[in-house]
């Protein structure tokens, strides 16, 4: 499922705090409850038509996809035990595992997969994830355990898109055919899935309770229950964690560094740390002639001390970004052009671009106009606001005047981003598990609702992004995206700032957690609490 979300935890294997009681002291045992905190209530239990991370997290335990990603972020079979790619790379054939049952006892077959496909491409379905499925030319049920899809053109992100949650056709198909909005069905409040956990109850605004599915195809999960407590306030979650009423949550940099570093906390919890699958950037409106000059953007890259942002704002919990991909992925190119902090060089580049004179305030002037712009970012993100202030100070030092404007999220997107009415923005991208970034950088994707907000246009990049989608060959794709990263580094269409760390914390009584490039949650069903340390009996 992780292929199409913005939330898949994924990372390189840098981690701290190996559980104190090393492996081997107690055998895996069934039982106990894991209590997690969720900042928002879920919006529904058919995750295919929700877009909030809480719904996806809960849904991910109840449902399963045809494939999933393993600890190294490689695709592996889930409901499918294998798949074939045709030589022309147009057709994918999935072979379903036999004997897998829905939680109500019905078998999982190709009919369920086919229903899910048809539901995802139905224009009436309110989903944001239908696009990869619309690339399919033909879909067919070969036999109850074989499903085949043929694409218009080879489409590399296709495989990961089949991580989408497969829905039970025996429960939903009749209603869907009758034109019923599936959000109003029982399945959306009390679902039947095929994943490791069975839905037990959902008390609106209070909690969601799941229980282990004993007939899960991979074996009964060790933890008997998972409870999501809905606590809408970040500081309350943290207090509940300190009082040990919550077993797992994510920390902020300051909590990680300063507020959890005492013996009692270290004894009760294990902190983990790995690179998150996202990056933050300083973007420019490239329709603005001042920013069209590559030298100006490069000057900004030299003028901003990114290590200072990582150290000062993230408290060292992250790293400097050099391009649009997360370090450690197979497609990441480490040896691209970098921009070490160098204000003198920044000034020289600006002078080359014609910004030579300064006015009485020390601001650079060209053709009588001072170099001054507004940097906009969204409200409610402390890290971004502090980053904006650091950028403001650093750019002022080279004679560029920056004003900061912080806007509520909906207004930010609708008034400024969609209408392209901005000079500069500070934003972040969550990344998929595939290097395809066609939607973000292709010059055709500049419509109001499309994602090339900055109006970047480079024919070579367009060609590379198209080519990268059209082959499954990893070596070829690596070369294609390598060249793409070189161009990004040279052109600096945005100034790439930092990749933050994910900072999950889990009760130390939980064993079996093995941090990997995919984060920690990939082997959740193998987590356990030794019998003598179990805390909840029911």
């Amino acid at each position, binding site marked *: 499922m992780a292929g199409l979300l*913005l939330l898949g935890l994924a990372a390189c294997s840098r981690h701290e705090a190996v559980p104190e009681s090393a492996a081997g002291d107690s055998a895996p045992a069934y039982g106990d409850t894991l209590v997690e905190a969720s900042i928002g209530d879920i919006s529904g239990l058919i995750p295919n038509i929700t877009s909030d991370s809480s*719904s996806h997290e809960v849904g991910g335990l109840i449902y399963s996809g045809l494939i999933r990603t393993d600890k190294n972020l490689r695709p592996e079979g889930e409901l499918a035990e294998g798949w074939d790619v045709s030589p022309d790379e147009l057709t994918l054939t999935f072979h379903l595992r036999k004997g897998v049952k829905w939680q109500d006892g019905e078998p999982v077959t190709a009919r369920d997969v086919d229903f899910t496909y048809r539901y995802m491409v139905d224009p009436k379905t309110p989903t944001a994830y239908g*696009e990869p499925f619309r690339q399919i030319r033909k879909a067919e049920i070969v036999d109850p355990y074989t499903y085949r899809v043929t694409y218009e053109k080879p489409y590399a992100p296709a495989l990961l898109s089949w991580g989408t949650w497969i829905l039970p056709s025996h429960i939903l198909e009749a209603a869907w055919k009758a034109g019923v909005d599936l959000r109003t069905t029982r399945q959306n409040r009390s679902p039947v899935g095929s994943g490791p956990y069975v839905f037990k109850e959902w*008390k*609106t*605004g209070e909690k969601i309770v799941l229980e282990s599915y004993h007939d899960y195809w991979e074996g009964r999960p060790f933890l008997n229950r998972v409870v999501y407590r809905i606590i809408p*306030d970040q500081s309350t979650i943290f207090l509940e964690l300190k009082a040990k009423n919550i077993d797992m949550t994510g920390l902020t940099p300051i909590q990680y560094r300063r507020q959890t570093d005492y013996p009692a906390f270290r004894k009760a919890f294990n902190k983990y740390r790995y690179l998150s699958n996202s990056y933050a950037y300083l973007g420019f409106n490239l329709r603005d002639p001042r920013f069209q000059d590559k030298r100006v953007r490069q000057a900004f890259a030299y003028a901003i001390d990114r290590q200072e942002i990582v150290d000062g704002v993230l408290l060292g919990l992250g790293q400097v970004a050099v391009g649009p991909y997360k370090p450690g992925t197979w497609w990441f190119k480490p040896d691209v052009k970098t921009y070490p902090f160098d204000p003198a060089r920044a000034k020289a580049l600006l002078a080359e671009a014609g910004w030579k004179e300064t006015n009485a305030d020390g601001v650079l002037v060209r053709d009588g106009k001072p170099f001054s712009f507004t940097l906009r970012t969204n409200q409610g993100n402390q890290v971004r606001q502090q980053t904006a202030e650091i950028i403001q100070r650093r750019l002022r030092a080279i004679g560029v005047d920056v004003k900061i404007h912080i806007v509520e999220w909906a207004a930010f997107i609708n*008034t400024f981003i969609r209408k392209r009415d901005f000079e500069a923005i500070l934003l972040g991208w969550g990344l998929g598990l595939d290097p395809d970034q066609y939607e973000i950088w292709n010059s055709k994707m500049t419509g109001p609702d499309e994602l090339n907000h900055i109006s970047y246009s480079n024919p070579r990049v367009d060609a590379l992004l198209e080519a990268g989608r059209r082959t499954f060959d990893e070596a070829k794709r690596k070369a294609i995206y390598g060249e793409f990263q070189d161009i990004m580094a040279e052109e600096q269409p945005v100034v790439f700032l930092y990749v933050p760390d994910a900072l999950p914390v889990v009760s130390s009584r939980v064993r079996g957690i093995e941090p990997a490039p995919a984060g920690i949650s990939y082997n959740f069903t193998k987590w356990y609490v030794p019998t003598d340390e179990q805390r909840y009996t029911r």
Partner: protein
Amino acid sequence: MLAYLVRRLLISVPLLLGILCLSFLMLKLAPGEPTVIQQDLQARATGAQRETLRQLYGLDKPIYVQFWNWISRVARLDFGRSYMPDGRRVIDKIAERIPITLGLNVLELIVIFSVAVPLGILSASRQHSGFDKATTVFVFVGFATPDFWLALLLMILFGVQLGWLPISGLRSLNFEYLPFWAQVWDLLSHLILPVLVAAFGGLAYLSRIMRGSLLEVIRQDYMRTARAKGLPERAVLFKHGVRNALIPVVTLLGLMVPGLLGGSVFIETVYAIPGMGQLFVQSAFSRDEPVLMALVVIGASLSLLGNILADVSYGLVDPRIRVSGQGVAE
């Protein structure tokens, strides 16, 4: 009395209509659309999909059509369906939360009244005593303390350090398995901190009003008459003093209802209590307009109801209004 009540109710009708109009306009004029939130920067959403969502929610219709549709449905208490992906009926979403918020507010009012009134009486009848000075200090501390700060301090002290009270939520995880009396205690223990924090400011305020009001009454001629005819001091104070001093206090208590409802937004968020206030915050952040507008209408109606009740009780404690029917509220 009846004429007074009818008159009071009639005044509320245009007030309610005004509230309906204003709240609709405010929400519609705010920038941003619900569909934007639903697909915040998801790399796989396209314009056509967004258009689908707009049509589904009727956002493509002109604003007056949207307003008319909404008003005519409000009259039938049909607030439509939520924009959230659960697509549930708004009235269902609110109905399951109203009892929690109302219960919390009633508890808060009871605590405020039953602490503020004795406190006010004691400090007024012993003006300038040590007790009076101590409560004055307490009251000003109460005014000056920010809710969110007090809430966090109490949570840290009683929840984390001492471990006497639960930090947040409404019930323990094992609530269903507890015997009845343990369930009652479980619920109460979860309510102690939020009710205390929510009541603190109002309590300080009202005890001050009670003190001032009683001090004024004590100096009235009829108090001197009561003492002159030889009544014991207790009877003078309670029969003649307190009863008269309560009049403004009762009114103010009714007027506190909107403030407490507003306070629920914060209290329910910090203490993770699934009431209307929490729903309001969630809906505001996700631009869930049908829910927001329903909450504004219901909140405003409850506030109006609070005012009416205050006026009625004002009439009950003050015979002059009841008899003449000419009493003016506020």
